[in-house]
């Protein structure tokens, strides 16, 4: 039985085995990526992501319900504090849905950033014991947060129905692009920060502080119109601000779409991603020794 299975699987692999040869040499060029190897590791990427999702809510009483509760509770709290007490302007959008859209993008960005920056440290035990393309660590921990999006988007849909907002085709098409933008942006920063975090654990303490500061610089609880004249510059260099702005004005038609700013922001996102990725690849060979 055992023998049969082994020989069968050998046959299956023989073709690719013959020409498979691993060459181990001192450090490689950062952009010299073995894509075949990355593709081969897709099952591993799947399991790493699946593990991160599984363990997140293990041994919690409410389990997956937390995915829904977290944005709902913060929406209620923010609405009470900023909508009711502080009377924050919201471009005439009902404050609960106004802040919910802001939180949707912000939470997705901040949670993916936190886990991707921490991914090398949290996968330390595997990285030190077995070889796999190291870029899978930040990618898998970022992917794990996409699952959280589904219930959040469902709540958004409910809120839109409740406030009788007309859902246009353009916003339905734009939302995935905006989310992808957040994903690429935070993954890019994560690529950059995770090797630094492996080297200097200080990052772990600076990051929450930095995220909090950045939230104040992002129109989550206030409208981007509050920036005044600098709004466009801020939106280009803070893709999260741009995503929130595009989403809000897309749903409520508060302002016409500012395509040049949008594309500039996308370009900036891609730039950040490649800088982060390049840095990660450059550091890849050294951080295991430090971890």
């Amino acid at each position: 039985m055992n023998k049969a299975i082994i020989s069968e699987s050998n046959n299956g692999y023989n073709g690719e085995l013959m020409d498979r040869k691993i060459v181990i040499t001192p450090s490689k060029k950062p952009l010299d990526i073995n894509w075949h190897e990355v593709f081969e590791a897709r099952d591993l990427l799947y399991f790493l992501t699946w593990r991160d999702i599984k363990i997140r809510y293990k041994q919690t009483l409410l389990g997956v319900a937390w995915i829904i509760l977290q944005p709902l509770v913060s929406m209620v709290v923010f609405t009470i504090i900023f909508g009711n007490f502080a009377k924050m302007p919201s471009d005439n959008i009902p404050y609960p849905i106004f802040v919910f859209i802001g939180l949707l993008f912000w939470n997705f960005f901040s949670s993916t950033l936190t886990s991707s920056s921490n991914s090398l440290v949290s996968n330390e035990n595997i990285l030190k014991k077995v070889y796999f393309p190291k870029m899978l660590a930040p990618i898998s921990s970022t992917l794990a947060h996409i699952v959280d999006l589904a219930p959040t988007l469902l709540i958004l849909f409910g809120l839109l129905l409740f406030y009788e907002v007309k859902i246009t085709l353009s916003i339905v098409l734009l939302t995935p692009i905006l989310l992808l933008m957040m994903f690429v942006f935070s993954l890019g920063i994560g690529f950059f920060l995770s090797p630094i975090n492996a080297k200097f654990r200080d990052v772990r303490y600076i990051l929450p502080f930095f995220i909090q500061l950045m939230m104040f610089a992002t129109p989550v609880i206030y409208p981007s119109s509050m920036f005044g004249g600098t709004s466009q510059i801020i939106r280009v260099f803070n893709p999260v601000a741009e995503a929130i702005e595009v989403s809000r004005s897309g749903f409520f038609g508060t302002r016409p779409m500012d395509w040049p700013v949008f594309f500039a922001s996308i370009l900036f996102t891609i730039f950040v991603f490649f800088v982060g990725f390049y840095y990660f690849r450059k550091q890849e060979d050294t951080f295991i020794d430090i971890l």
Partner: protein
Amino acid sequence: MSETIIKASRVGKLYNLEQGGKYYNLRDLIADSPKNVLNKYLKKKKSKKGNFWALKNVSFEVKKGEVLGVIGRNGAGKSTLLKILARIVPPTTGKISIKGRVASILEVGTGFHTELTGRENVFLSGAILGMRKEEIKRKFDEIVKFSDIGKFIDMPVKRYSSGMHVRLAFSIVVHLDPEVLIIDEVLAVGDIAFQRKSLKKMHSLAKDEGRTVLFVSHSMTAVDSLCDRVILLEEGRLVAEGKTRKVISEYMSDYVPEDEMPQIGKVKSRSGSGKVRLIDFWMEDENKKRISTAMTGGQCRFVFKFLCPNGKPQKDVDFGFGIANDVGQPLFLHYSTYTEQELGKCPVKGKFVFSFDKLPLAKGVYKMGMRVTVKGEEADVLPGAVNIKVDNGDFYKTGLIMDQSHSPMYVDGSWKFEK
């Protein structure tokens, strides 16, 4: 004839102790950066004081189906070599090429997450060790069966006993089927039954299924029974390479600290007329290399060096020794008269040598006493003079290491079933 699977040429690994050795804070970087910038500006070379070659110019080849052992003392560079081969860290110099799928097992249970169930961990750990999802699915039942986990497979691993944990982890490992296996001392975990089981499985992986295996261990007995060839590392350099037995005995003989050698000269409680005096004792393997530890079932020689202090050859000399366990219970003794080998004429100096075809002692430390008589009169008596160390070995020549601690002795014999 058989193709080369692993080829390593001039592999070296340099570590910088100044940066890697301690936690390097952002504060340190900021504090050091003016100095670094200045050094760069002045083109000063980085101090070489903190550099340390964990491996230097290591070259070797492994052929298809061969089991290569890597031995050496702690800090000799074994783990570094393994990590480079497993591609966990890159080498600083040199080049290695490996043909085929490689699985490196540097610990049992790589990637296990205690919150997940056994079933989930099989998939996770399997994927981490390089199996495809389909492959794990196909082998899942077999893995569970081998591990004897049974109905506990759907329980979180954190509720497992350590034995269950190790069994499950190990059964994943043995169901990998790469062409090249790189194994660290993972076999040294679990209880004796498990160690035997895993060693046996490793044996069949290598010998019956023709895998190419690189095996690192401190256990000479495990290396001895598994490996065809051994390389010996010392301070990052490859110092010996060759047949397992030869390299092991070299290692064992060269690395015996002086104080671990049995010292006969220091024995005070000796009596006898003194016509013949024992002046030194050591153990040798079959190649006459000195060893500090003998192996169960191994060939070994006890060498007793003597001299006659008065410079006159003695007549009718009988020599014997006795072995007792650590609490002094005698186990056996042997005199040259037993085998009618009494020395009719004994030269002024020389060596009495006793050869064991198969040392019948189990792992442990034993006391040895010696006695020389000349014409029936005691010449030199040293009761419990030296300690002898014995390590597990393959007594029954089954290819497996025996490890029984219930009895100090092994006997030869065979079983037959009769109605």
